[in-house]
């Protein structure tokens, strides 16, 4: 058991550090350091452009998507090297937010199912951030129950014709491509009639409508498909095998979300360290210390759990369902942390304007974004099901629609 870099790792770290030092957009470092879940603003700059420029620079020098093979725009690095990079990239890593879905989910799915020529064509610009990808899975009829989706794909000659609607699609408004799960056979049970594609988001018939979120921001969208044409060559996996293909995506999603999600603890600790309450510094208050300690051991527990996962990965083990723990714990923790930070501010905690609120309204922004964190990529309840069923081996939920042809499943809450 050790945390020391091997000579090889140490060399990699030195090289990474030097390159970041010489190339990172330093002018934004302070703002990025201060930003938190729900609030990343760069004054006088378009964050999308800054992020894309940084990603491109990394790609050109061989620092993008480190763990991907070189021929697809990566570096063929080890999982440990990837972690070392993240440690060294520090606050600049926050610029990768809009690439997470593409790099974490769409890329791996393409790698597993696209043809060689397609991989060489689509993956490098995805790695370099020149092209952004989105994940078109959820629908009004199927979120947790992804396989309940209704968007149809019908074969016409060498093409598929898509009609239907997706929802909650993060980044669809600035995405160039997407992976799309559709129903190709409604006459068989729901999991058996799905097929996966990737498509150009600029295709005729694709319409993206931003949704205003509870947080007030608009990061996700509704996406409508009207007679959208996708060539059969853009199918991922076999016809009607889309469910298995999507499992690859979702497993990778859990891994990438679980590893990266913030807990809010460092922010809270820093805040309590400087906050004065009526009878002295907050950090000297007994109840504050108790709360802080509880959050501290959750945050460190998560950190070391992911280090254990990385150690296992580096020995050749595959990421398993136990990685659901990261998102499950961090999701509700960030929400609690935000609420507690506001509680400590008393009546003024209600104010969220950067000028009036403590630490520029960081916790207020976190509070308003947090509910989404507990839903996106699988709700807390779904994460618990995964742990209970796939880690602990408990029986699956009773699924009354499992063997029923999709077109005979009731669609309303009451039947």
């Amino acid at each position, binding site marked *: *058991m*050790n*945390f*020391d*870099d091997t000579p090889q*790792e140490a060399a990699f770290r030195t090289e990474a550090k030097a390159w970041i030092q010489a190339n990172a957009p330093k002018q934004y470092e302070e703002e990025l350091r201060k930003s938190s879940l729900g609030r990343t603003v760069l004054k006088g700059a378009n964050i999308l452009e800054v992020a894309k420029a940084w990603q491109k620079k990394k790609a050109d020098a061989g620092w993008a998507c480190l763990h991907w093979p070189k021929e697809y725009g990566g570096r063929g690095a080890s999982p*440990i090297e990837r*972690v070392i990079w993240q440690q060294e990239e520090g606050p600049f890593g926050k610029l990768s937010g809009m690439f997470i879905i593409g790099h974490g989910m769409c890329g791996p799915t393409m790698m597993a199912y696209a043809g060689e020529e397609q991989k060489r064509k689509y993956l490098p610009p995805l790695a370099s951030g020149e092209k952004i990808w989105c994940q078109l899975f959820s629908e009004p009829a199927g979120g947790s129950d992804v396989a309940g989706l209704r968007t149809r794909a019908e074969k016409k000659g060498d093409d598929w014709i898509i009609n239907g609607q997706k929802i909650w699609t993060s980044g669809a408004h600035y995405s160039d491509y997407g992976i799309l799960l559709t129903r190709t056979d409604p006459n068989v049970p729901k999991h058996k009639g799905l097929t996966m594609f990737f498509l150009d988001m600029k295709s005729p018939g694709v319409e993206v409508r931003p949704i205003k979120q509870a947080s007030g921001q608009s990061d996700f969208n509704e996406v409508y498909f009207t007679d959208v044409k996708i060539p059969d060559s853009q199918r991922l996996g076999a016809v009607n095998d889309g469910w298995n293909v999507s499992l690859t995506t979702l497993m990778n999603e859990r891994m990438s979300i679980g590893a990266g999600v913030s807990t809010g603890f460092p922010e809270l*600790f820093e805040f309590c*360290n400087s906050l004065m309450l009526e009878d002295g510094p907050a*950090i000297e208050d*007994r109840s504050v*210390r*108790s709360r*802080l*300690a*509880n959050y*501290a*051991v*959750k945050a*460190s*527990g*998560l*950190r*070391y*759990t992911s*280090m*254990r996962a*990385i*150690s*296992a990965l580096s020995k050749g083990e595959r990421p398993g369902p*136990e990685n659901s*723990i990261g998102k*499950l*714990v961090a999701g509700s923790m960030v929400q609690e942390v935000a609420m507690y930070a506001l509680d400590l501010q008393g009546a003024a905690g209600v104010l969220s304007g950067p000028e009036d609120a403590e630490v520029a309204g960081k916790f207020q922004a976190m509070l308003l974004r947090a509910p989404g964190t507990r839903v996106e990529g699988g709700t807390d*309840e779904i*994460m*618990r*099901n995964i*742990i*209970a*069923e796939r*880690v*602990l*081996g*408990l*029986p*699956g*939920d*009773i699924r009354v629609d499992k063997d029923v042809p999709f077109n005979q499943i009731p669609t309303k809450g009451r039947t």
Partner: protein
Amino acid sequence: MNFDFSDEQKQMRDAARKFLTEKCPPKAVREVLDGKAPYDKELWKGLAEMGFLGVAIPEQFGGAGAGHLELCVIAEEMGRANAPVPFSSTVYLAAEALLLAGSDAQKQKWLPKIASGEAIGTLALFEGKGNPSPKAIKLQASGGTLNGVKKPVPDGAIADFAIVAARTGSTGRDSDISLFLVDLKAGGIEAKPLTSIDPTRGQAELTFTKAKAEPLGAAGEGWSILTQVLDRAAVLLAFEQVGGSDRALEMGRDYALDRIAFGRPIGSFQAVKHMLADMYVSATLARSNCYYGAWALSTNASELPEAAAAARISATQAFQHCSKNNIQVHGGMGFTWEFDCHMYYRRANATALTLGSLSYWEDQLIDRMRKKNAA
């Protein structure tokens, strides 16, 4: 980086588990629980023969000289088996104090006896209610003798020797405290067993009347040594707690698969599934914090104080959480004497208090994090 135990260490864990499954079934734990014996002597002997008691004791002092990572994997198995032996007091507290501060002669005298199972040791720190604090220590040392009362002392009624924290000054500073080594079989000590929430680990009151004592470590250094001993013991005990958490989770899972209600295994009800998932989560977070503690302990890293407090808090929470919900999963059965659930519930709540309570360690953690932050 390699954040895992080595294959050899895992083999040692397997060996310990196999040994304990055989020699320490719940039936054996119950012998002690029911008051038929103060501890399991046979098991204690067996542990010595396996080399587990001296695993972290250097070879020159009769141990195996393996190290603390090895001790951690054994501690986990001791917790998993709920072993009714004075392992934590002897190995984590007494032996660690000797290793840290003992003279060569003291080490030569006691460590081989610990390794061979001939001597049981303990730490006599508390004097009534409260958490570790120099102020709370009233027991007086003067002229090489001790006078005063210690309670609760873990395994105090069966111990052969004790490391005793005593007051040697009156400046009001930490340096008023010194440590002493006392042969409990010599005169001047009265040991009275006390009843506790976990009879599988005895507690006692020790009354010292002109009891002969030799200093352990330099005079006035007692508190600083104690703090280090408690940190080391916190990591080791946390591994026991993680072992216990895992076992409680496993028992709950097995029962949930077995018990049928409303025509289904109760493990198919989401309320039960999610309770078990949450038990898994707390046990996993604790295990990861413990691994970090193990690393800090085995390398004597400057991170040890913080890592120890985090491991201790996390493992205390996990064991309490898993053992109480294990009973809930078992329903009425879980509340019977016949089922083993309560043994883990007892042990969880007793270990939560033995090195200072949860709130004490919370306080310690934040202090230590602050210091690091300021540095």
